[in-house]
Each structure stands twice: as structure tokens, then as C-alpha cells.
């Protein structure tokens, strides 16, 4: 039941157009697989462009987010300053706020900044994630104090300590967060849909939807499935490589979307 849709998607993607439409009763296997559909998927519609866009979006927002949350997590976990607890409580409270409430104003903000159909407009609102900040802060706090004091005695600056000691020690958590964020970015649909109506800035989710409604002509389902396989494959590969990490990260309490 779980695997069947995947099987069906790959199967359909290698059936030729004529063969697929010739089957009044769909066949469960094919004897003459073809890769022409994949060629079609990348040539007749702009799938390649969507891919590039998605990669830019994913890399940029993940990288920016990591910088922002590493600094913030360090401040919360290691530094002592006035108002720290208040600030942290505020952050936790904001975690409960559903995205749907804030997305309306964000849409207006980005529109007013003339950032529709730009990468900046796509990326900026997804830079901050309180949940990942929280995960990282918990991990930073587990690193023994002695290391910090030792570094202080040696005259190490905070920022050197952060990047030379803390980040390497917490690498497993950081990698997990990066992977989860990449998955999230790759699959994001709602915000990109609101903020882009120029095809040149579509991400893969929007691209797939566009292909469904306007590309290929409605009936070329094998080519459509080839596009679907192409979009799903990168994540499945990442998942199979980092299986353990992803599952551990998710079970620590994330929800999808």
C-alpha cells in the first residue's frame, strides 16, 4: 500500500505515450521501457529551470537560516545578559502561532517591497525557524561549561569559540537540522505560489502544478509522471543516505509543514 504509488509512478514514467493510452485496462508491468519521457520532461517544459530555482531557494534559505540560528542559539545557550529569559519565552510562545495567520501580512509586506517574483521575496520569510533554533539551543547547552571557561582562560574570543569548538562538537545536530530544512524547502508550495506568478521563478512544486494544468497537453501522463519522478528522486536519495538522522530528528518533535 505504501510503496505502490511509487511503483506506479516509476512504471508509468517509462511507458511510451502510445502504449499508455492504448491500455484500456492499465498493465502492471511494461516490456518495453523507454526514457523518452524524461527527455520530454526536461525539454518541452521548463523543468530544468524549476530545478535550478528550487536549488537556489533551498541552498540560500538553509544557509541564511543556519547563520541566524547559530548566533541566536549561542546567545541563548551560553551568554548571560539582561532580558534573556523574557526573550526566550517570547520565542517559545511564537512557536504556537500558525503560519496561516502571519502569511497574509507577509504577502503584503513583500508586495510593498516590490519583491514579488524575486528570490529575496521567496527566501526572506523562511529564514527564521524557531523550532530549529530551539533544537540547536538545547544541543549547545549540553556542551560542558568547562570547555567554555578553558577557552576564555586561553583568551579565545566568543566568536572563535563558537565556530572552532561549539559548531564542530554539535555537528550531528546541525546536519540533521540542515537536512530537515532542505526537505521543507524543497517541498514548500504555498508561499512560492503566492509570491511568484512569473514562470521564471517557479519552484518544483509550483512547476509540477503548472505542468499539470498547462504543460504537455493534459493527456500525456507518462511524461508528467517522468517529471514527478525527477522531482521526488533527489529527496528520496537524501532520505536513503541520511535515513537514521532524519528519523531521529523528526521523532524529536517536528511536524510537517
Amino acid at each position: 500500500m505504501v510503496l505502490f504509488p511509487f511503483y506506479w509512478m516509476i512504471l508509468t514514467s517509462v511507458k511510451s505515450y502510445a502504449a499508455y493510452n492504448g491500455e484500456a485496462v492499465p498493465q502492471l508491468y511494461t516490456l518495453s521501457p523507454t526514457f523518452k519521457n524524461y527527455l520530454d520532461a526536461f525539454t518541452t517544459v521548463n523543468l530544468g529551470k524549476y530545478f535550478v530555482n528550487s536549488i537556489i531557494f533551498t541552498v540560500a534559505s538553509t544557509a541564511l537560516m543556519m547563520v541566524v540560528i547559530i548566533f541566536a542559539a549561542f546567545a541563548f545557550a551560553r551568554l548571560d545578559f539582561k532580558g534573556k529569559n523574557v526573550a526566550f519565552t517570547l520565542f517559545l510562545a511564537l512557536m504556537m502561532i500558525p503560519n496561516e495567520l502571519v502569511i497574509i501580512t507577509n504577502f503584503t509586506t513583500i508586495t510593498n517591497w516590490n519583491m514579488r517574483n524575486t528570490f529575496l521575496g521567496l527566501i526572506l520569510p523562511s529564514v527564521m525557524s524557531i523550532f530549529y533554533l530551539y533544537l540547536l539551543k538545547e544541543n549547545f547547552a549540553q556542551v560542558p561549561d568547562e570547555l567554555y571557561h578553558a577557552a576564555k582562560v586561553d583568551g579565545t574570543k566568543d566568536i572563535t569559540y563558537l565556530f572552532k569548538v561549539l559548531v564542530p562538537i554539535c555537528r550531528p545536530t546541525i546536519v540533521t537540522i540542515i537536512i530537515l530544512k532542505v526537505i521543507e524547502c524543497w517541498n514548500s508550495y504555498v508561499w512560492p505560489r503566492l509570491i511568484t506568478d512569473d514562470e521564471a521563478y517557479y519552484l518544483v512544486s509550483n512547476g509540477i502544478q503548472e505542468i499539470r494544468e498547462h504543460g504537455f497537453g493534459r493527456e500525456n501522463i507518462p511524461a508528467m509522471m517522468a517529471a514527478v519522478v525527477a522531482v521526488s528522486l533527489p529527496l528520496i536519495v537524501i532520505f536513503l543516505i541520511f535515513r537514521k538522522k532524519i528519523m531521529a530528528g523528526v521523532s524529536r518533535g517536528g511536524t510537517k509543514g
Partner: protein
Amino acid sequence: MKKSNLKGWLYLLPAFVFIGIFMIYPLIDVFVYSFEEGYNFASQTFFGKGLYNFSYVLHDTFFLQAVRNTFILVLITVPISTGLALLISVCLNSIKVLRDFLQTVYFLPYVTNTLAVGMVFMILFKKTAYTDGLVNVILNTFGGSSIDFIEGPYWAKMFVLCFYTIWIVLPFKILILTSALASVNKNYYDAARVDGTTRGRIFTKITLPMISPTIFYLIITGFIGAFKAYSDAVALFGTDLNSAGMNTIVGYVYDMLYGNSGGYPSYASAAAIVLFAIVLTITCINLMVSKKNVHY
């Protein structure tokens, strides 16, 4: 001391800038929007303040349709997916061979693109000029007649939507439940076995109470998640959900904001606040019920 205060806030500054602009300000603004009547997006003017937006939204047939769809979706998918996940995780927990492999397989839907796989489901269920689709062929062999699940009767479309939603949310629940089951102290089971307790009794008297906080957590997040359903419906029925009669509350919010019927941020805000109120109420009810039934 002064200097370290400054430094702390300096490290926090980037995070605060983003949160301020994209979370705190919008949160206040959404309430302001929802009370501004006749707001015009182009000229950014409005006539007055009041409750008209709420009244408009609550009388809009599309909104009522969306609310009904969402409630049906929630009431069907949350119990079924939680129950099914419990069943599968208990089975997973009791087998030794292939456990890792099966866990991986069950988790696969979590990482896939909702839109992309939704299209696979659409093809499985869809009836076209060439073929009735695989599901209908199976129906036929059991003596049923073909149904157009994607553009056909309401209940058929709802069935597909529920089916797909359950398929999408199962992995998360299975993962959480298996790790909860694995963490139950083995001593309890050994003691029960010495006493000769039956398997059914072990399950209801030991396993269920021990993992009840987890089940409960899943029910709450399940409710919240199902109320926010949107992209699953888009994947199956296309972007014009109103005409398909399959819109959800979140879908209604976005349609009001943007798209063919868009340009009404005030209505969108009002609808979003109604949604938030519904979710908040249900979560509170859930919490009260759990106080009575969950063993910590």
C-alpha cells in the same frame, strides 16, 4: 556587565529582525486587517472599522463549504490514521526481521513532495477518455461500476482526499509511536508474562496506558494538521478548489488573498482568525479530555 548585555543582544539581533518583521508584526497586523472594512489593496485605504469582514466570511457559501469539507476531513482522517498507525507500529514492534527495512519503507511518504505524489494518486483514481484508471478497474473486477473519483460525485472526491491525507500523515505517526513503544520498560511485560496475562490484556492494561501521552500528542497535532489541509487538495483537484467544491479553510484564505478571486486581505484575515479560533477551541477540548484519560 554592560558590555556583555550588549553582546548578547548583538548575537540575537539577526533572529530578532526576522521574527519582528515576519512574525510579530504580521500577527498584530492580521487582527488590524480583519477589522478594516472595504480595504482596497491598490490604494491601501478603507472605509471604517467593524465586524463586517467576519460577517461577510461567515455568510459566504464558499467559506461554509470549505468549513464543511475541512470538518469532514478532520473527523475522518484523524481517528483512522491514528488507529492505523497504532496497529502498524504494534506489528512493527513485535517482529524482529526486516523491522528496519519496513520502518524505512513506511517513512518514505514523509519526505516526498506532496504535490508530486498527489498527482500519482490522481492518475490512479482518475477516469479519462482512454482508461477508467487502475482503481476503477479493481472496482470492476469486484463487480462495482466505475466512478470518476476526481471530477465525479462529492463523496467520491472526499474519499480520495481522505485516503491521500491518511497516506501522507501515517509515516510521522508510525515513527513517533514505534519509538514510544520501544521505550516502554520491558520489566512490565516480563512481570505480566510471569503472571500469565493474556496478550490482549497486556495491550490494554500496560501498553496503551504507557504510551497514552504519545497517542494524545499525535491526536492533538493530527487535529491541528488536518485543519490546515490545503496542498493535498490542490495536488488532487487543481488550484481552482472552489469550483471543484473541495476547498478547505486554508485554501479559502489563500484564494481570498491571491489568485482569480483574490485581492481581499481583510476577508482572508477574518477567515484565518476564524480558523485559528476553531483550532484553539478544539485543542483546548482535547487538553481537557486528556487530563482525565492520560496516565503520565
